[in-house]
């Protein structure tokens, strides 16, 4: 044997490595428990469900994480070279079976449990009577559109798009339903009101992302994608783009203002009035 046992099997190395793993595990667990940098509070029932599923996943992965890292540390420390002969075992079918089964149950079970929230977001449409809110992304801004008193979104034409002349969506002036459409760079929605969000884009793929709503959906060219939400806590919530769209991706942001019904009605009236004066 060419190796010098004392050098290679040094207890110092084993201890340091094991200790680092344990300390690292403790720091990680602490940071996840302390929630120093964490989700902003959810402002919808749906968001609460997402958070619950996240916590469930966190607990399970946390336990596995601690067991695995500490197990590794233990194995390293216990089995360091102390001059002993290593045990010769090539496997253990029973253990193999047990931990495979446990993993399948945990992982697949977790996955199935979380499907409920996804189903609610995507398998069903907006509740009837939802406020129709269209949002269109472009390099590098968001524009919201309300259908106005006639309840219909007017037609748009690509060749009419001109942000510089105040028609970022390319509303067709010859279409009577587009006359009362309200276009706004920020959104106002009433609290507790189901909103149907209609997501579009003019140029490349963007992504509509409001943290507090726990809502993210890509805006895909050539597609009109419907989502829905119901915000229960008033406030001003930042909208950020979450799909790389070019050099201005980092500053493509807007706001969703959740306000009382009265404030919303007032805002809407102000917008309609401004439209009349144009």
């Amino acid at each position: 044997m060419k190796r010098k046992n004392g050098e290679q099997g040094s207890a110092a190395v084993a201890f340091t490595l094991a200790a680092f793993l344990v300390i690292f595990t403790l720091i990680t667990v602490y940071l996840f428990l302390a929630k120093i940098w964490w989700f902003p509070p959810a402002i919808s029932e749906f968001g609460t469900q997402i958070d619950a599923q996240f916590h469930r996943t966190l607990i399970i992965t946390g336990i596995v994480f601690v067991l695995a890292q500490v197990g590794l540390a233990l194995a390293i420390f216990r089995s360091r070279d102390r001059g002993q002969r290593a045990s010769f075992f090539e496997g253990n079918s029973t253990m193999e079976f047990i931990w495979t089964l446990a993993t399948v149950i945990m992982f697949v079970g977790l996955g199935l449990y979380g499907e409920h929230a996804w189903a609610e977001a995507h398998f069903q449409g907006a509740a009837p009577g939802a406020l129709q809110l269209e949002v269109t992304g472009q390099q590098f801004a968001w524009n919201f559109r309300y259908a106005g008193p006639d309840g219909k979104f007017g037609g748009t034409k690509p060749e009419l798009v001109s942000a510089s002349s105040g028609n970022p969506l390319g509303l067709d002036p010859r279409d009577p339903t587009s006359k009362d459409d309200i276009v706004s760079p920020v959104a106002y929605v009433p609290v507790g009101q189901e909103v149907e969000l209609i997501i579009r884009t003019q140029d490349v793929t963007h992504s509509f992302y409001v943290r507090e709503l726990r809502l993210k959906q890509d805006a895909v060219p050539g597609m009109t994608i419907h989502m829905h939400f119901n915000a229960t806590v008033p406030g001003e919530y930042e909208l950020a783009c979450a799909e790389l769209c070019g050099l201005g991706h980092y500053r493509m942001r807007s706001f969703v203002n959740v306000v009382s019904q009265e404030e919303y009605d007032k805002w809407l009236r102000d917008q309609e009035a401004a439209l009349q004066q144009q």
Partner: protein
Amino acid sequence: MVTHESGGHHHPPTGFIRKYIFSLDHKVIGLQYYFLALFSVFVGMALSLLMRIHLVWPSAKMPFTPGGQMTPEQYLALMTMHGSIMVFMVLTTAPQSGFGNYALPIQIGAEDMAFPVLNMLSFWTTFLSLVVLVSAFFVTGGAPISGWTAYPPLSALGQIAGPGQGTGQTLWIVGVAIFCIGSLLGALNFITTTVDLRTKGMTLGRMPLTVWAWLITAILGLLAFGVLLAACLLLLLDRVAGTSFFIPGGLVVTDTPIVSHTGGSPLLWQHLFWFFGHPEVYIAILPGMGVASHVLSTFARKPVFGYKAMVGALGAIGFLGFCVWGHHMFISGMSPYSAFAFSLLTMTIGVPSAIKTFNWLGTLWGGRIQFTTAMMFGLGFVSLFVTGGLSGLFLAQPSIDLYLHDTYFVVAHFHLIMGVAAIFGIFAATYFWFPKMFGRMLNETIGKIHFWFTFVGVYSIFMPMHFLGIAGHPRRYADTTGVNFLGPLHSVHYFITIAAMVTITAQLIFLFNFFYSLKKGEKAAENPWNATTLEWTIPSPPPFDNFAGRIPVVYRGPYEFSVPGATDDYVPQHLAPERVGKAH
């Protein structure tokens, strides 16, 4: 040792060009790939260092920027090239084409790969793709800004979509397409060699786990790269020929209507790309898993725990890897019902990964661990794989991915798995096989210093990114001042950047050790680690035909360590039973 004579007699190559440039020797080719990867990883790290510095000190003067300050498009170009170079030129080359080329033929008792000329061609094709890729930096408009994922329409519309999206993007596509061809050629060689060139006694069940990993990885590459090649072809045509595979109609870019395209689907690219892209990430990690198993067993002086299960897990991961691509697309506008299916399949792929982790622990438990640098990187691999893999459980669920998609949580996940665990696999392999390759030992003390800086460093860099993601920080942001809610996160960015600066600088320790030891390292014996596989039966470095005409015969499995009743704590694979010493 019983051998049989090789069928033919061949002569060593002569002349500098034949020996080192257009070599047909799998060992030289393997090293060519390795050095290509070594060069690329330092380029990739430099790019990320510039990115990290810019994020924290946006007004810092940067090299190569006219006017001094980095622009958002420059940041995005750095990011795109960082990802592309690291994924393709480092993670898809070194673990597979680098170490695999070097060690696979020897480990199975072959004198070379099945098709040496094809092998040489695949390296030079890969080299060409690197040249084309990097040339994107030097054309008008610079490198592309669409990320290594190159989603259309951003990547398809040309210059109008942004700086770097002209010639730069075209060169990127061509470079990647050439890379596909090089990889396909390499995969052909790996599989044929493993299937047909094993020496007498080397049954599938006696192959080292490294060989199994290289085989399965090659199968993944064979089936996946053709799809990327097709996707690149269609994207190229959309750009230069005016077709509309991926570009829908009615687009308006900066008030300019795009009239020359209609009817295409951006989602089609995503499906094609990720059908390739997901197996690709398994291509990046599987060889590292093989190396980890091999190194852990060797230095714990114990057989691999559950060899059959390990092989099965490699196969399951490889197979399932083709079934989960949709988990990159939960938010893409794809059918939510298919998201459900992809999610369950993705959670399932965690099972074979968990099996491997348990078995690594089982390999260590009750062992007699020698803490060589190779072993430490192998142990680090296990820790990092666990951490990185577990964050995948969050992302695999679409309801949670709704929030975490395209945030720094994803960046943390894939960096820990690819950018760190896979890299640790490369380091473990380097420290393990360096003596064989170069006939000298790497310095163990310097190696351990390198290990500690790197291990502590990478966790310091990437663990905080999970919290950035949980706080909602989107990825691919060139600047953190455009969105209010990123303000409180600046301190975390600062910490990450400092950690990155230290860790990247510490890699110079490795470089120093590597090149110093090449010349001045302690001379290496034939089997410095008392290992069992066939590469340790030949001189360090090996002769050009590996076994000098005397091919070994294999009598047992690859991990016969601490066999009860044997005098030594290892029994090499090639030792005839009557030659194995018995303890009295």
